[in-house]
Structures are given as C-alpha cells and as structure tokens.
C-alpha cells in the first residue's frame, strides 16, 4: 500500500467527522466574540485627559507643514497638549524627564527620501510603549494618504523600540495601509485556522483509542509510511481552510498584492504544516482527548493573543517572549509585510523561521508516530 492510499482514507474519515468540523468553526468563533467583547469593555473604562506631547521638525518640507496644520485642528487640540521644541535633544530630555509623554520627530531627509520613493519613518520617542500619540500619527498618515503619496507601512506600526521607549512609524512611498480594524478579523481567522490542530490530534488519539492502530502495526507496511500518510491526510484536509483564508486575503487586499500571492500561499502552507504537526505531537504525547484539547486551545489562544497585542503595539513581558514561538506571529508578519511593503529582511527571516519550525515539528511527528503510537 502506498502513502497516497493512507492519505485518501485519512481525508475521507476526516470529512465524515462533521462534529469535529463544527467544533473547528464554532469554538474559535465563540473565542473571538469573547475577546472582542473584553477588548470593548476595557476601552470603555479609560479616564481620558489631555496628553502632553512635543514635536521637532528637522525637515521643514511639505509633509511637516501639513503635520503642523493637522496638529492645530480642533479635534487634535481637545486631546493633546502640543508644543514645538528646538532640537531633538531638548525633546528627548523632556521625554526622559517625564514632562511630555512623547516626542514626534521628522528627520532632516524625510521629504527627500519620500520623493525618491524610499521608505522612511516618522519617529516617536516615548517612555510608554502604549501611547495615543502613535494612533494620532497613524491618523495623520491616513488623512494625508487621501491627498498625497505618503503611506504608512501597514503590517504593524513597525514599533522599533529602543531602550528609552523610542518608537518609529515607517512610512512607505506607495498607497498602502493596514487599518487596526482589519487586524482583528485577520487574527481571528488565523486562530480559527489554527484550531485545525485538533484534527491531527483527534486522528492520532482515535487511532489509539479505537484500536485501529493495531491493524497497521500488524500489517506489512512500515511505520514511516503510515505516519507520513496520516500526517499528509490531515494536512490535506486542512488545506481547503488555508485556501479559503488565502482567498479572503486576496479578496480584501488583492489590489495591493502586486503578484505576491506565491509568498502568501507558501506561508499558509507552512502554517498548515506546523499546526497539523503540532496537533499530532500533542496527541502522541498525551494520548488523551481532554488534556489535548486543553493544551491546543491554550497554545492557540496564547499565540493569537501575543500576535494581537504585538499588532496593536501593546506587546510586553511574557507575551512578547511568546511571540518568538508563535507561528501566528510569523504568518501575520509575512502576510502584512508582503502586502503593505514591509521590510524584505523581516519577510525573509520570518519565512526561514517558519520553514525551520515546520521541518522540526514534522520530523518530531514522524519520530513520535513510529515510537510512541502503541
């Protein structure tokens, strides 16, 4: 028997398990609704007062002038107490001394870089990693986008944090932007896709619990063929979900993708490999349905939460460290950076991380499948 036949029967069995499919769609939806509700309630409790900020314009170009006018609008002045400073050092001293919450800085060659079509940054210096200044600057970029060629790099806010809490907002010369509102459904759907790990997990546990594994162990096929067939079967079952996600991405941002679809397909394939392997590994290690579901739900929730707080610029502490293990984070980075002109080096390093994770986890799955299944 070849591996493809095992793949065929694994897919057939997965498709007929309609209750699991319902779970894979229903559970993340509920989880997403809960998260959205919690976020809304937290935001309602904020006691708002004017935020003291300063800005220094070393560029003196058209954009800086527009920004100056933007800062003097009624809407901004009701929320911010703004002052101009004469030098970057003065502004930084005020930030460090706590006199202002943030300093907005336009570099000397800001306009020049933009005119040459290069990416450049509006920088924010702040002691707080969570600041409304960032949102205000983003708002400015989005406003300006309507009439000029300045665009914010979408994926995140490219929050490059230096020791004192200095932030940068990358600005792209193309017309691309990722709105905060788009991040939530994107991450919600990614979480939903990641629940596919349950499929691999249940397939492993059911074959042990329902004794069907014995049939394979006593038959004249080797363990590698069986485990890889089962793995590919589960992976193939999840591929249509990934395909739908790619279709969703293309539907929403298709016009901005400019032929980068292959990069996104590759990313989602790697993501699907990782979640399939992760599910099967949890199944092999626990061999129990309840504990496996708990582990997968917690891991998925944690990875999604870490990516979500990073995407909204509020990642800190434990969640920040979790990011490095999160396939959701790398997928999000690659997709958003690819669509919204992010850093190429970051796309490359994220892809390498995902390939490494997929390789390690697949190898581990096959190793455990051959050794721990009985």
């Amino acid at each position: 028997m070849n591996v493809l036949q095992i793949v065929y029967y694994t897919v057939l069995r997965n498709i007929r398990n309609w209750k699991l499919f319902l779970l894979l769609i229903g559970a993340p939806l509920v989880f997403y609704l809960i998260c959205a509700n919690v976020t809304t309630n937290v935001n309602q409790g904020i006691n708002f007062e004017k935020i003291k900020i300063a800005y220094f314009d070393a560029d003196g170009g058209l954009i800086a002038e527009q920004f100056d006018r933007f800062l003097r609008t009624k809407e901004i002045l009701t929320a911010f107490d703004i002052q101009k400073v004469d030098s970057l050092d003065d502004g930084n001293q005020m930030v460090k001394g706590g006199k202002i919450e943030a300093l907005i800085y336009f570099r000397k060659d800001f306009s020049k870089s933009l005119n040459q079509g290069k990416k450049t940054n509006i920088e924010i210096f702040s002691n707080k990693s969570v600041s409304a200044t960032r949102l205000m600057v983003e708002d400015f970029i989005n406003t300006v986008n309507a009439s000029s060629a300045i665009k914010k790099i979408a994926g995140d806010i490219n929050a490059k944090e230096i020791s004192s809490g200095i932030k940068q907002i990358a600005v792209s010369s193309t017309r691309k932007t990722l709105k905060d509102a788009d991040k939530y459904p994107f991450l919600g759907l990614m979480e939903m896709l990641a629940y596919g790990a349950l499929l691999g997990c249940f397939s492993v546990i059911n074959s042990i619990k329902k004794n069907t594994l014995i049939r394979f162990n006593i038959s004249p096929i080797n363990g590698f063929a069986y485990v890889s067939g089962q793995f590919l079967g589960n992976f193939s079952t999840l591929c249509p979900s990934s395909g739908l996600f790619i279709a969703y991405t293309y539907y929403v941002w298709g016009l901005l993708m400019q032929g980068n679809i292959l990069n996104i397909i590759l990313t989602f394939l790697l993501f699907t490999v990782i979640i399939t392997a992760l599910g099967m590994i949890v199944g092999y290690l626990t061999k129990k349905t309840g504990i496996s579901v708990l582990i997968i739900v917690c891991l998925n929730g944690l990875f999604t939460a870490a990516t979500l707080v990073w995407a909204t610029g509020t990642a800190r502490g434990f969640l920040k460290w979790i990011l490095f293990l999160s396939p959701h984070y790398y997928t999000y980075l690659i997709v958003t950076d690819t669509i919204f002109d992010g850093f190429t080096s970051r796309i490359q390093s994220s892809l390498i991380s995902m390939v490494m994770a997929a390789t390690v986890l697949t190898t581990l799955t096959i190793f455990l499948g051959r050794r721990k299944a009985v």
Partner: protein
Amino acid sequence: MLVEVRNLVKRYKDVLAVDNVSLTIEEGEIFGLLGPNGAGKTTAINAMIGLTRVDSGEIIIFGKNFKDCELEIKRNLGVVPQDIAFFEDLTSYENLCYFGKLYGLNGSLLKERVQEALEFTGLLDKKKQNPKKFSNGMKRRLNIACALVHHPKLIIMDEPTVGIDPQSRNHILQSIKQLNKKGSTIIYISHYMEEIEELCTRIVIMDHGRVIVKGTKEELKAQMTSDERVVVELSTANYTLVDNIKKLSGVKDAYVNGNELTVISQKNSNNLNGIIDHVSESSEIISLNVEQPSLETVFLTLTGRSLRD
C-alpha cells in the same frame, strides 16, 4: 511446522510476563491457548505478531525468523484482536478495502476478496452500512472479516466471541471450522472452555508466564482425572441398592440424594453394565448420565480457584 517459539522471555520492569515459553504449532491445526487473566497469553501472542519486542527467545513462523523477515511474515498473518478494531466512520466495504490494501491487494482481486470476506461473515447485505450502527455480534464478525480479507495462512484470534449472542457465536465457531477445513492454521485464545473443547485440536494452558501443560484435550483430561462419575435418576432409590452397587468392581463410592444415585468409580473400570443391571432390578431408570471430566475441571485444577487481577 508452521510456528516455533523457542525460550521466549518478556519482562516488564520487575514482572516476568513471559517466562521461557516454548511452543510449536503444526500446519492445519486449531491451536487453543488458555490461561487466567495475566497469565501471559496476550504478551506471548503480541510478541508473535510484532506488537511487543521480546527480551530474549526466538520466533520462527513459516520457517523464517520473525526478527529478520517481519514484513514478509506479516503478509501471511491475520489477526483478530480482542477489541473491535476498525474505522467506524467508514462503511464495512470501505474498511475491508482499506485493510486489504494494507496487504497489497488491489483492483479486481481486492473487490473479489472483500466480497468473499463479507459473504463469509454474513455481512454482504450490510456492506454499505456504517458499522457504528451494528450490533455487537455484527461488529465482531466485521472484526473477523478484516483479518481474513487477504487470505492469511495463519490466523490468530484473541477472544473473538466476547459479549455476543449464541447465534453470532455459533456462526463464528462454524466459520472458524470452515476456515480450518480450507487449510488455515488458527491460534485461538478464549476463556470459554466449551469453545476451546469444540474447536481445538491441541491446547496449551499458561499461567504466571509459563506453559503449565500442553497436549490434545483428551490427553489433558487423562492427565488430570482418576475418577469416573455416573449419575442415575431413578423412580425409587433405597440404601440396599447403594450397598449392592458398592460391591461392584472398581466402585470407590456410591450415595443417593433423593431419587438420584451417584456412583464414583476408578478410571477405566468398565462397570457401567453392572451398575445398570443392579439398578434396573429394583427400580426404573428415568435418566442416566456418565459425567466426563471437563476442560474447565482441568483448567481449575491446574490454575487454582483463587481470583486473579
């Protein structure tokens, strides 16, 4: 010789599950394996089918060493596990196709064999049904069909009739006899002594990981019993009759209980005619039963009556 097991040893930490077991199974026989729970039967069988790695010993099946030719041997092995082992989300037909393909069957041969296995187990009309809705007896039959689809030379059946109705059990037992007639060698593990007695040509009883006795059922009974017991139901019974019976040659004891006379004689004393003559002189015989020692008696004598874990 189809199977030869030499000095098999399997240890689980401090527990010696199989202790130096040696067995031989001839081609064409139905070989019974008996033993109380935890006797080591399943461990020994698992070692023979490659589910358990042994600590020492040698397993030779079809003249080949299991260690060296595992896949080749497995091609001709059919195993009916104690627990139901098929996919409940596939139909009976699909299950058999799947397991048939594991043994290299394909195309028209596969279809033919699947059809044959379904017919053999009486499930042909249920081939498109999902086994989730099957009765326990039907599930057991499908479990057997899965092991037969590739026409194995050696079939190992681990308690295939547990928890089923007498009709299904009878069907399974008849099927086993048919398989044997067709040339399959069968290793049959069961706790049901009457099944072992009915089916098996040779029997091994295991306990505490060791083979404690082996032979044909007649040999086992002969080894274990020295008495013969005759129970006669009479119209009337009296103590004079008992005294007369006791005087017969070979009679060790005789007693009445109501209208029932029990006579215990030495093995092979051949005094049944004398007993009937004496009894019929003074009373009318309603029924007469010569009680043979059962396999269960042998089993309990050898393994004891204390409960096992």
